[in-house]
């Protein structure tokens, strides 16, 4: 029995194809505006990646990933906002040196929880730690009490709703419904011009590959197999000597951290953060990206996020009213017809086709190796 390598041949191929697409094809064929849109789509790929681990493999459906996306995004936005709110930039305010929306809300000094965001180091730490701690608290409260399945999904959805209400209600501290806007520089480097957008795109792609590698590592470790076992027979895993709650908490925290990195990249690439990316609707859309991509496929998550968002942009450019129906239809189609999403279509229809073509070229004993190899490889995993 071969041990599962960290990177199998299929994984390496997947990485190469994705790298070709994201690093070469898209930057060469798109203008900066479109490339920036792709950067925005890709921020959701981080979230979808986390959902593949947590929902696809672990069976923990979270309908509140927008919360973690938002936490990461807001942490980044707070740092950028403080940098943009220098005394010089805000000298027309009644209290110069504080973010504009605080001034509009008669707040005269920067509140304590904004203070750490003066430092970029602390901000980067906060982007990872704040969502992880929050996910840990939710996870510990739920999973230790063995709340799971639909109940967990509903609770995460409620948390997403609460988070939106909180952000909108605390206008003076959060920028309210408008969010945190007018972000300018990162350590003095302007994030708004075209060349900055291109640099940020590549930075984001690099982070995405980091997260993909981490996800692949987790998936191929024994922990990945325990997640699959847990999705199927949670009780039995306890009698194999594992604390199911701890493994669920880990998967949920990791998914939250991925989402937060996506959120932070969103703020940098798009230039603002608002509660409209935190609530129930965006959280459910994130689940749809994952489902369309194939909830059991790490690479599928990236393609799902790209394709659904691309469809969203093009459809809502031409038929703004139709998009939501399109999205609903897409979700129903995925659930009913393609439960394994794009990755499933690839595995069940496209790959056998390739295998057949390859077989025709080199007939003989290659037949079994060609078709059975990837299927047996993927069978327990996907």
């Amino acid at each position, binding site marked *: *029995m071969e*041990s*599962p390598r960290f990177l199998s041949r299929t994984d390496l191929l997947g990485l190469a194809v994705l790298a070709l697409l994201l690093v070469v094809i898209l930057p060469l064929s798109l203008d900066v505006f479109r490339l920036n849109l792709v950067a925005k789509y890709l921020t959701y790929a981080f979230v979808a990646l986390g959902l593949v681990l947590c929902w696809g493999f672990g069976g923990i459906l979270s309908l509140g990933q927008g919360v973690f996306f938002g936490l990461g995004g807001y942490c980044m936005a707070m740092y950028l906002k403080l940098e943009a709110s220098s005394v010089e930039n805000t000298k027309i305010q009644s209290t110069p040196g504080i973010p504009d929306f605080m001034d509009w809300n008669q707040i005269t000094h920067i509140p304590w929880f904004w203070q750490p965001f003066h430092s970029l180091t602390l901000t980067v730490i906060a982007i990872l730690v704040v969502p992880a701690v929050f996910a840990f608290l939710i996870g510990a409260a739920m999973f230790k009490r063995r709340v799971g399945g639909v109940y967990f999904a509903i609770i995460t959805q409620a948390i997403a709703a609460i988070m939106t209400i909180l952000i909108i209600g605390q206008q003076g501290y959060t920028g309210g419904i408008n969010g945190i806007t007018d972000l300018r520089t990162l350590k003095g480097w302007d994030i708004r011009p075209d060349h900055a957008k291109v640099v940020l795109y590549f930075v984001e792609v690099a982070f995405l590959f980091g997260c993909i590698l981490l996800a692949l590592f*987790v998936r191929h*470790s*024994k*922990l990945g*197999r*325990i997640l*699959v*076992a847990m*999705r*199927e*027979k949670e*009780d*039995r*895993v*306890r*009698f*194999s*000597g*594992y*604390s*199911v709650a*701890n*493994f669920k908490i*880990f998967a949920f925290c990791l998914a939250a951290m991925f989402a937060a990195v996506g959120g932070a990249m969103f703020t940098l690439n798009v230039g603002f953060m608002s509660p409209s990316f935190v609530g129930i609707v965006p959280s459910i859309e994130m689940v749809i990206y994952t489902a369309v991509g194939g909830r059991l496929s790490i690479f599928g998550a990236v393609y799902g996020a790209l394709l659904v968002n691309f469809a969203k942009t093009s459809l809502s450019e031409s038929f703004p009213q139709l998009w939501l129906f399109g999205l609903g239809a897409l979700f129903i189609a995925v659930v009913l017809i393609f439960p394994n999403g794009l990755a499933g279509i690839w595995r069940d229809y496209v790959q056998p086709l390739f295998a057949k073509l390859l077989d025709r070229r080199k007939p003989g004993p290659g037949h079994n190796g060609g078709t059975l190899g990837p299927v*047996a490889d993927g*069978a*327990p995993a996907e």
Partner: protein
Amino acid sequence: MLIGHQQPDFLLAVEGLTVSFDGFKAVNDLSFYVEENEIRVIIGPNGAGKTTVLDLICGKTKATAGAIHFRGKDLTKMKENQIVQAGVGRKFQTPSIYEDLTVFENLEISYPQGRSVFGALSFQRTPAVRERVEEVAEAIFLKDKLGMSADLLSHGQKQWLEIGMLLIQDPDLLMLDEPVAGMSVSERIKTAELLHTIIKDRSVLVIEHDMKFVEDIAHKVTVLHQGQILSEGTMETVKNDPKVIEVYLGH
């Protein structure tokens, strides 16, 4: 305070164990002791509470009253996974395996190492692990099926796989719930053979209906009836107990 202390010879001491489901006492003030390397069989008519006793010991069901001491630890206060780590293994009545994983992976997950989150992340499939998995696979007649997805196994093979998963855990107390139920005659014979090898050097608690099998392996038999002990002793004693004949064997 001497209550709760037991003689050190006993591996498992069940004392005053009671569980009530909405007032119905499935197990009622039950006490029994299992020694090291003892093979104890629990028999009794349907609904006597046999499976519930195993559920209570392995932590699946929480006791209403009483104590279960295993090597000086009170199992009633521990979680399922802690009880497993303390050395109690349980085979369920219906085969309970991970069907999305291969036979190899099923056995590997049961290998008693890397059970914490970060332990599982850094777990390596070392030659020692592979060797042990292959050794167990050979014992459970599945050596040539290691790479196969577990859902493709037959019912009997699934039962064997679960026995293998227990075997690789190497528990000090092994609990088997009707290990030969639903098996064909040839599978039964093979399983009996398998059980004979794996019950060596450990204590075993078995629920079984097959009297021939019971007579064959049991050191001591406990007869349960309506959640209480009706009779206890060697198979010979139990068989000749008029109370037992009345409720169970006579039927």
